[in-house]
């Protein structure tokens, strides 16, 4: 049942008119008023302008990345452990609650680093080996995250190396360079448009990168490289690098990763669809 707006201020009545919250009789009455009264028309236009401006501003809020840790906890956990993961929303105590575990963790890290450093110095040799080990800890996914951060910010002109218009040539070009045969996934039913491809190098190996965009202009990438089959074939692993979420898996003789904004809650479903289609 719609509310009567009679007797309310003009801006409230016109606002209700915009929202379709007036009954038929009042709607006609207000339309006649708008047609003959300049002030009513001016107020209506102001309200509509406010709506449009607000739409834009609120749309921006929607694109803020949702903390992936929260997404993961909801999706995977059998239940959220209040004891270990509850964050009280009490402001005055919040700093303490948040800081002491971090301070403890930081102290432990410093202790370990200090201990390790002392051990390394004490050994007086093998410095080079240590450096190599540290460098090796960086995976191909770290390189992919860096590439994504760089390329996702590019304008359409520089987003890809070979545009989607090259069609079937892309599959042949990438397959021959990377050594992985694949089919270009059509993700239009997921709201993603194929923009084109790039050939990258990550962890010293050639990597194929397929770039997609959604309706909001967010960039999603599928990257893969040749790698020996492992024990974890098919198992999907989720990780986050700041505002970028990554879901990776191994299948046959290749490793794959889907990269997208961490705010995207459907990345896992997307990765599953890609794994089946590629």
């Amino acid at each position, binding site marked *: 049942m719609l509310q009567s707006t009679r007797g309310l201020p003009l*801006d409230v009545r016109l606002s209700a008119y915009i929202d379709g919250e007036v009954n038929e009789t009042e709607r006609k009455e207000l339309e006649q008023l708008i047609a003959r009264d300049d002030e009513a028309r001016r107020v209506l236009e102001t309200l509509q302008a*406010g*709506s449009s401006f607000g739409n834009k*501003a609120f749309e*921006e809020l929607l694109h803020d990345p949702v*903390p992936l840790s929260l997404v993961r906890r*909801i999706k995977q956990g059998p239940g959220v452990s209040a004891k270990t993961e509850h*964050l009280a929303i009490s402001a005055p105590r919040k700093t303490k609650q948040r800081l002491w575990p971090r301070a403890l963790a930081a102290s432990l890290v410093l202790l370990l680093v200090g201990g390790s450093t002392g051990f390394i110095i004490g050994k007086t040799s093998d410095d080079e080996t240590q450096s190599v080990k540290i460098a090796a800890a960086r995976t191909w996914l770290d390189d992919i995250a860096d590439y994504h951060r760089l390329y996702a910010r590019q304008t359409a002109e520089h987003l890809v190396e070979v545009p989607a218009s090259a069609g079937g040539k892309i599959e042949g070009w990438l397959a021959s360079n990377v050594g992985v045969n694949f089919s270009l996934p059509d993700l239009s039913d997921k709201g993603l448009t194929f923009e084109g491809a790039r050939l990258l190098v990550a962890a010293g190996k050639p990597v194929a990168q397929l770039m997609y965009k959604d309706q909001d202009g967010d960039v999603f990438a599928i990257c893969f490289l040749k790698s020996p089959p492992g024990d974890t074939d098919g198992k999907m692993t989720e990780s986050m690098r700041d505002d970028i979420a990554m879901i990776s898996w191994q299948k046959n003789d290749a490793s794959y990763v889907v990269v997208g904004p961490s705010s995207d*809650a459907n990345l896992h479903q997307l990765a599953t669809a890609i794994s089946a289609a590629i």
Partner: protein
Amino acid sequence: MRPAVESNEFRRDLVSVLPKLRRFAMTLTRNAADADDLVQEVCERAITRYHLWNGEGRLESWIYAMTRNLWIDEIRKRRVRTGSGTVDAAEQDELSIEASGEKAVYANQLQKMILSMPEGLASVFLLVNIEGHSYREAADILKIPIGTVMSRISTARLRLASMITETTERRA
């Protein structure tokens, strides 16, 4: 107790509304840190009480109402702790509190502007103008009279319209 698969479906649905939930929380708390804490608490509560969700209507409405309730509880706790604190506009017909510049800490200029709106306006605008809830639905979620929804949506639009002028003047 419902089978696990239903629980998993609920979790999936919950994840899919997270960006919207966070945005709604931002309109209540008007700063990102409080919004994130609030979202986490709401999700915890929703998961433990998902059997109470009847599956009818919009999941957002159920979650939003829970979010609003938790935020009101939090404000009350803060008021008790501080001995005075703010008065929650969501419980009042009259708007009285302006968000301080410090509170509306957010990178984007547009976001800063909407988060600096007087309490209660942004939530109503979001529910009605952006997400298409009816006045009745918005009133139920925010637990305010429908007349308050009507006046707030209008005030929010006029306020946003005045921001266009402010933005233009600032650029000039």
